[in-house]
């Protein structure tokens, strides 16, 4: 078989994930699998128009339908009728105006899903359609209708260093290009949903997946006008998120309906509803002008980014900041001007998505590097090397960062790829092969000036388990495994001794969101803070009970062990210790902040990870089909904690990025989705992937680095698209500027270049 999915030896492991058995047997209850006695089914009525005034809403007929228990509109929102992670500008239920097809207008709870669906059809909404802004550049025209009180610009960001105009005059070579990046859908397999249960004590329990249970609780309290303490959010496990479930989705409707009816309410969006209402990756149009001197030193880089953020803010401002920050990537360029605009439109709401603006801007940046290399007649690897950051250089926006030579590490690793030396010619006369390489730099955590708290709790619980609790969520990324591996390593106990508690605001400390590649990193940091006090307290207590001096004791499997001259023995089990300490349980908590740069540059990051990707493609000149035959990635993100998870993040991220490059676009026409389900929104199947992949994890950190492992949730998705695009150029001489890559453009290019021999027949 030709299929070969290989990896560096440090990614080999035999650990079984804590949630593994339940997942392969189907025993795991996802929150959308739950049901409760007297449960009702909720449905949400979304706007019929991408932009319209609401003249009237009549729910009378729906309310009269037998089996309908409640119909709600904006009038039923007791608190703030808005939500949004950065600032609340999205109506929970629209009252005067709708701004996109996912806007909620009403919601219904009924005895069955069918009745709820019928009731939606009976709600009469009178709209007055308004002009639709379906393009961010149209939104910027003075004549464009204002979508929000402050106009159509959600956010502007810029970065300036030196004088680009002056520097361009000195350049021997300048390349300028405009890149267009598509609206990608997260396509988590489990659509948004869960059950909201009113409890006897007057509280509600929200069993709905999210990346940040406490944040949902905060937003819900504001909407429902009840104290946060009245809300319990149970939010793991989830069938995928990729950034898409960090913002609220169906929770407010379920909660409002549950409170109104006094019954548990289940909402589980259909795929079609999910496509219509859910977040997407920001489409961006990025113009870059980059100049270098003859020796290959880049001296000027000018960037303009226009992001289509859709109807509401959510994390739009932060995504733009991230794109601006990463516009120079791992390169040191003396003169830089980057400006970014995030613009409201009547398109689908864009927000958080794995890579967070870095994917778009890195595609453009690496495209510039490859174009410059061709113009200069220089090896693209050499060009990159000449401009690469050194370990102690400042970060991309002039901020101090944790020293790292990750960029050089990954570039070196990928330059050893056999793909770069072998030059095999295709045996098929109708295919052309090509190879491309790209690199990426990616910041972790939320960045300077943003509340980015983390924390954890470590205790010996009454059952004798070493219980570790975090406010993080498990959505597939393998967080549970990371926690388990780290506890075993840092504490010395065995997997059976560990109990992990996550995803329940009644039982976990605040750790911030499971986002921005911060989970693994923050678990490690928390354990570094907690392990010594926890161990000390436990050993001291053990010493008190057993009379053995502390310096002879240590934590091991099952319990506390006593060191003898040549061997050691189990002295007291954790269970016994738990019984002994039940009046004064051992519990350590920690709270801290994600490490940030000391320089006050909003959004500037401090910890970065790196990746380099090499791709080999085969271009079918008859059809324009591009097949990625082989893909390699080298990743530098510090120590590997859970090898299978790390590998899975990079492999899975690679294929998601391959989809972004070759297949995926949530197409909208006049503000309405054309691709409404998986028959038209196509993500890679097993047939679309490179059947040969190789992943290398570089663990070595810069000397003195005390920040431990970085998360790898995002880094594997960033360098793939530009590597594939370069490989296509290598194969057929076409510079790709727009994703997903157009087969039609390839066939046209082939026509132009007469790569088919019958067309050359005179």
């Amino acid at each position, binding site marked *: 078989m030709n299929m070969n999915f290989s990896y560096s030896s440090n990614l080999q492991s035999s650990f079984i994930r804590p949630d593994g058995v339940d997942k392969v047997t189907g025993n795991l209850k996802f929150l959308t699998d739950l049901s409760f006695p007297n449960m009702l089914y909720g449905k949400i009525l979304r706007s019929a128009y991408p932009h319209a005034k609401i003249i009237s809403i009549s729910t009378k007929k729906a309310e009269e339908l037998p089996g309908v228990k409640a119909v709600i509109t904006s009038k039923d929102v007791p608190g703030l009728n808005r939500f949004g992670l950065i600032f609340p500008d999205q109506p929970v239920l629209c009252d005067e105006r709708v701004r996109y097809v996912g806007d909620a207008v009403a919601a219904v709870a009924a005895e069955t899903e069918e009745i709820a669906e019928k009731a939606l059809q009976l709600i009469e909404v009178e709209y007055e359609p308004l002009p639709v802004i379906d393009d961010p550049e149209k939104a910027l025209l003075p004549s464009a209708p204002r979508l929000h009180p402050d106009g159509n610009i959600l956010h502007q960001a810029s970065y300036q260093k030196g004088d680009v105009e002056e520097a361009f005059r000195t350049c021997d070579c300048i390349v300028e290009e405009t890149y267009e990046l598509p609206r990608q859908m997260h396509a988590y397999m489990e659509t948004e949903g869960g059950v909201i249960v009113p409890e006897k004590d007057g509280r509600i329990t929200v069993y709905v997946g999210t990346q940040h249970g406490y944040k949902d609780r905060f937003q819900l309290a504001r909407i429902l006008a009840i104290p946060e303490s009245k809300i319990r959010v149970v939010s793991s496990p989830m069938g995928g998120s990729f950034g898409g479930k960090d913002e609220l989705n169906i929770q407010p409707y379920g909660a409002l309906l549950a409170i109104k009816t006094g019954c548990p309410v289940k909402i589980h969006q259909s795929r*079609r509803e999910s496509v219509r209402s859910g977040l997407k990756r920001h489409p961006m149009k990025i113009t870059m002008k980059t100049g270098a001197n003859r020796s290959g030193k880049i001296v000027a880089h000018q960037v303009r980014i226009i992001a289509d953020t859709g109807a509401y803010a959510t994390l739009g401002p932060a995504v733009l900041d991230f794109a601006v920050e990463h516009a120079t990537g791992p390169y040191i360029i003396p003169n830089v001007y980057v400006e970014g605009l995030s613009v409201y439109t009547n398109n689908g709401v864009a927000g958080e998505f794995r890579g967070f603006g870095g994917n778009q801007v890195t595609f453009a940046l690496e495209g510039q590097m490859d174009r410059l290399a061709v113009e200069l007649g220089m090896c693209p690897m050499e060009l990159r090397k000449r401009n690469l950051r050194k370990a102690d250089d400042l970060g991309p926006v002039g901020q101090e960062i944790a020293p790292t030579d990750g960029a050089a590490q990954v570039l070196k690793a990928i330059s050893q790829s056999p793909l770069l030396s072998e030059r095999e010619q295709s045996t098929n006369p109708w295919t052309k092969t090509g190879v491309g390489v790209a690199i990426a730099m990616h910041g972790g955590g939320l960045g300077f000036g943003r509340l980015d708290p983390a924390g954890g709790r470590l205790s010996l619980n009454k059952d004798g388990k070493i219980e570790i609790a975090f406010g993080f969520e498990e959505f597939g990324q393998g967080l549970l495994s990371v926690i388990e591996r780290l506890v075993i390593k840092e504490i010395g106990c065995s997997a059976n001794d560990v109990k992990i508690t996550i995803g329940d605001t009644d039982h976990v400390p605040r750790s911030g969101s499971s986002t921005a590649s911060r989970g693994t990193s923050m678990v490690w940091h928390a354990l570094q803070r907690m392990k010594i006090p926890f161990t000390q307290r436990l050993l001291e207590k053990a010493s008190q009970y057993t009379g053995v001096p502390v310096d002879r004791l240590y934590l091991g499997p099952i319990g506390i062990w006593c060191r003898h001259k040549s061997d050691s023995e189990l002295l007291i089990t954790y269970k016994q210790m738990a019984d002994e300490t039940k009046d004064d349980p051992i519990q350590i908590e920690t709270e801290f902040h994600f490490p940030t740069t000391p320089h006050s540059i909003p959004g500037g990051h401090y910890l970065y990870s790196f990746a380099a990707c090499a791709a080999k493609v085969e271009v079918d000149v*008859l*059809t324009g089909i591009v*097949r990625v035959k082989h893909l390699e990635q080298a990743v530098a993100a510090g120590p590997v904690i859970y090898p299978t998870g790390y590998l899975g993040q990079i492999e899975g991220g690679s294929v998601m990025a391959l989809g972004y490059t*070759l297949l995926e676009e949530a*197409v909208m026409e006049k503000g309405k989705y054309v691709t409404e*389900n998986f*028959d038209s929104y196509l993500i890679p*199947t097993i047939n679309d992937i490179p059947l040969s992949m190789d992943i290398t994890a570089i663990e070595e950190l810069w000397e003195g680095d005390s920040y431990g492992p970085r998360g790898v949730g995002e880094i594997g998705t960033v360098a793939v698209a530009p590597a594939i695009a370069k490989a296509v150029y290598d194969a057929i001489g076409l510079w790709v500027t727009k994703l997903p890559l157009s087969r039609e453009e390839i*066939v046209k290019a082939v026509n132009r270049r007469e790569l088919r021999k019958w067309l050359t027949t005179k």
Partner: protein
Amino acid sequence: MRVLAAKVWTPTDIEEAWSLRKKFHLESCFVAGGTLLQTQWEKGVSYPPQLISLEKVEELERMNYKTEGAKRFLQIGSMTKLATCRNHPVIKEKWSLLSTAIQQIAAPAIRNLGTIGGNVVYGFGDAIPALLALDAEVSYFDGKTIKIEKLDHWLNTRQNNEVLLTGVILPEYRHSSFVTQFYKKVGRREAFSGSVVTVSGVIGQNDAGIIDFVRLAVGGGDNRPQRLKETEQLLIGQMIKPLLLKNVYDTILNEFHPISDVFYSGDYRRWTAANIVISELSRLEG
């Protein structure tokens, strides 16, 4: 749609199915495997209140390999599952083009539900270009008797739901010295995708390399599968030479006018169809 507001009828023979259809007329439709209809129902496309399932009509699920006079042919009942067709040893041996085509329709689980008849009646199914290239016939019940006609003719003349498709008939065609056949589907991804362009052909050459019969068919997207008859005419009696290929290319562009959708233009489909045909013909270059 989770539940349909419709009544399901499960007739067990053709006459019963027909009489139900007569009885409910526009208030009804036949349902074969239902895999395509489900995608429409889920979109909110309306459906009639009476659904006549053909799954219990056993005679529609039979396969017969027959000889009648000089004619040898395979009758495939319209309710035969796509998976059954794909894996059937006789089809694999004698009409492998159909097996190849079906392999590229949807995915295995769907092919265990979807039927050959459903694919044909849909009118855009990916089996059709292969069936056209194989010069297949269809049999249908018109309320009185079972009639047989060329699929090509039937596709161009049939009125929706006027008849009940009962089967697909694959004739064993005359063997030239050399027969080449191909089926190429260009989807939007490598597998499990609707077709953008599908091209299929059967080409016979004599010992001297002269083409003595040829059938070419194209389809894809919202384009009705069609034979490329002008191109076929051009090829008959010819040997493959570079100049001929150039003419073939131009002729295909001339006679195939596919429509565009949001994903691919008509031009892309034409070029691609022409490119595929040329690449296949160029293998036969003498």
